[in-house]
């Protein structure tokens, strides 16, 4: 029936990559480099926000895009990272760089706590549990005193590199770029590794993956925890960028916005996620006057994308190969059926006479 395994064994198509995508990539790279040199403070700030969503999007992409698990509480990990860095920098005067591994530990451990029991079940349940987890974290951050309650934590020091304090928008942009590049390279290496292929197999057919000897729960948990750690790093950067954080940055809407970046760009596609992150940050900035309509547009956009272009604006290469392979095999099967019917047809008159 399914010829997907055949599709994976074939070398990836490279010649068919459309020219406009290459042009778009070049334009994006030029824009990213030119922005700090020529943009004003506002533009650079928007650019930095795009980078935050690139980190978040690439992290969530491991969970949703690679492993095919729907996480609706991703903002919780973003919050845990941001609050960890903020708490330790404000209360223990720890260096920003030292808070990073702590944030990674906290987010990773909470990822295991939420993921380990739920990843054994249907992925729909994971969506609901993560949603509940996201709400619990937000409510807890609002009610606890060590998180500063509804006002959050403010007066977070800037990150420093030796004597250099990263304070100006331009410096923050470069720090964000460094983070985003690390996440991008990490995401790319993961997607082409043995781990990435295991996730792909699980995403496409969990039973078949299990039958070929993949420990699905372990690999799903790994995807979930890695995604959580990426969000934690993004949160740490977010804390020193804003120098003040509060629970309103980590709502369900935040989780949906990050998800939207992935869906818009293309699940599992790294350039797609970057494109999606740029669109969801820049579009609301351009359409400031229509702020109330933004969420409605997101809602309709999600449905429309699923109905019309579920693979996203810049789909991953694997998705395209699969779609073509399936179409081909279906065409073959149809041709086979037609041929069989023709044989029956030609045999029928003889049988009746």
């Amino acid at each position, binding site marked *: 029936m399914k010829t997907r395994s055949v599709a994976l064994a074939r070398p990836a198509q490279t010649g068919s990559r459309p020219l406009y995508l290459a042009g778009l990539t070049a334009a994006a790279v030029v824009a990213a480099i030119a922005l700090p040199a020529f943009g004003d403070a506002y533009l650079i700030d928007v650019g930095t926000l795009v980078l935050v969503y690139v980190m978040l999007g690439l992290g969530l992409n491991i969970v949703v895009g690679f492993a095919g698990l729907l996480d609706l509480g991703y903002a919780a990990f973003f919050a845990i990272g941001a609050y960890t860095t903020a708490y330790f920098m404000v209360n223990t005067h720890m260096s920003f760089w030292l808070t990073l591994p702590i944030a990674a530990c906290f987010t990773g451990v909470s990822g295991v706590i939420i993921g380990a029991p739920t990843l054994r079940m249907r992925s729909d349940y994971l969506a609901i549990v993560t949603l509940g987890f996201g709400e619990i974290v937000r409510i807890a951050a609002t009610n606890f005193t060590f998180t500063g309650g509804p006002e959050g934590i403010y007066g977070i020091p800037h990150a420093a590199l030796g004597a250099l304090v990263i304070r100006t928008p331009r410096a923050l942009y470069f720090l964000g770029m460094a983070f985003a590049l690390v996440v991008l390279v990490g995401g790319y290496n993961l997607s082409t590794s043995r781990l990435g292929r295991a996730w792909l197999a699980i995403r496409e057919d969990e039973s078949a993956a299990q039958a070929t000897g993949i420990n699905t729960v372990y690999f799903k948990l790994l995807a979930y925890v890695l995604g959580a750690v990426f969000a934690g790093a993004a949160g740490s950067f977010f804390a020193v960028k804003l120098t003040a954080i509060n629970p309103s940055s980590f709502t369900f809407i935040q989780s949906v916005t990050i998800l939207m970046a992935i869906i818009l760009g293309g699940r599992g596609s790294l350039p797609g996620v970057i494109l999606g992150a740029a669109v969801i940050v820049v579009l609301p900035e351009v359409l400031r006057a229509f702020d109330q309509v933004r969420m409605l547009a997101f809602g309709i956009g*999600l449905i429309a994308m699923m109905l019309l272009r579920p693979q996203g604006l810049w789909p991953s290469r694997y998705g395209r190969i699969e779609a073509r392979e399936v179409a081909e095999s279906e065409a073959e099967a149809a041709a086979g059926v037609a041929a069989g019917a023709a044989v029956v047809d030609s045999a029928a008159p003889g049988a009746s006479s």
Partner: protein
Amino acid sequence: MEIALQQLVNGLTVGAFYALIALGYTMVYGIIRLINFAHGDIYAVGAFFGLSTYGLLALLHVDNTILTTLLALIVSMGCTGLLGMLLFRVAYRPLLHARLSILISAIGASLTLEYGLLLIYSPSFLVYPHLFGRNGPSFGGISISWLQVLIFVSSIVLMAGLYTMVHRTKTGMAMRALAINQDAARLMGINVNRVIGLTFFMGSALASFAGVLTGLYYSQISFLMGFLIGLKAFTAAVLGGIGNIPGAVLGGFLLGIMESLAAGYYSSRWKDVVAFGILIVILVVRPRGLLGERVVERM
């Protein structure tokens, strides 16, 4: 003890809302294995349709409390039911075989309904007509309002009606057949899309019934009212065993009571955490719920 009994009464009222909404989740999940994320917002839409009906009747100078309430309930249930069917046709039916896509589409539907309500009605709270006072029968120190009695009794009647319908009529039999095996049901001559559409209609109508009564009970509604209660009703459905109709009712009342007790004895700020904590614990310890059958990953 008095606090406990008073919280029990409040819990049964809130539990009735959870149970009515949980029924919609459980019926849809039972038939097409979809967590209908927009169901909580369907409930909110029901409350707004009810408010519109009250407003319209006030313009027409109809001011008999029983008549207006009855009309508000019927109109809201009918309109919301049709909206539920429309939602299925537009957002879910083309995606029935794409599991991740249909879930994302459901989130999109949820946002569309929420912010559609915001744009059409109001971004702030709207006030419901105050038709029922706070008076009612009292037992010792516990106060019960007639509205609470009405909510409890009418919910039980509706739930019993639904149960009878699913287990005694031919349409109900078709629904149960669909829940077991869709292809086999189609081969038996069941119009699958019509039955699923009907399921959406009934689930949405029940949610809108809860929506109108919520408006009367809390006397204010907002476009986001469905988000949290939808999550909790889903928790109730899972608690009772998703796909199981008596389970949804049991889960709804249990969750309402537990939450009210937590609010009464500990702090109402943490009551939402109690609900989500229950959800996570149930999924970890007993994913099939109290009355459900074993959850099997569908191939």
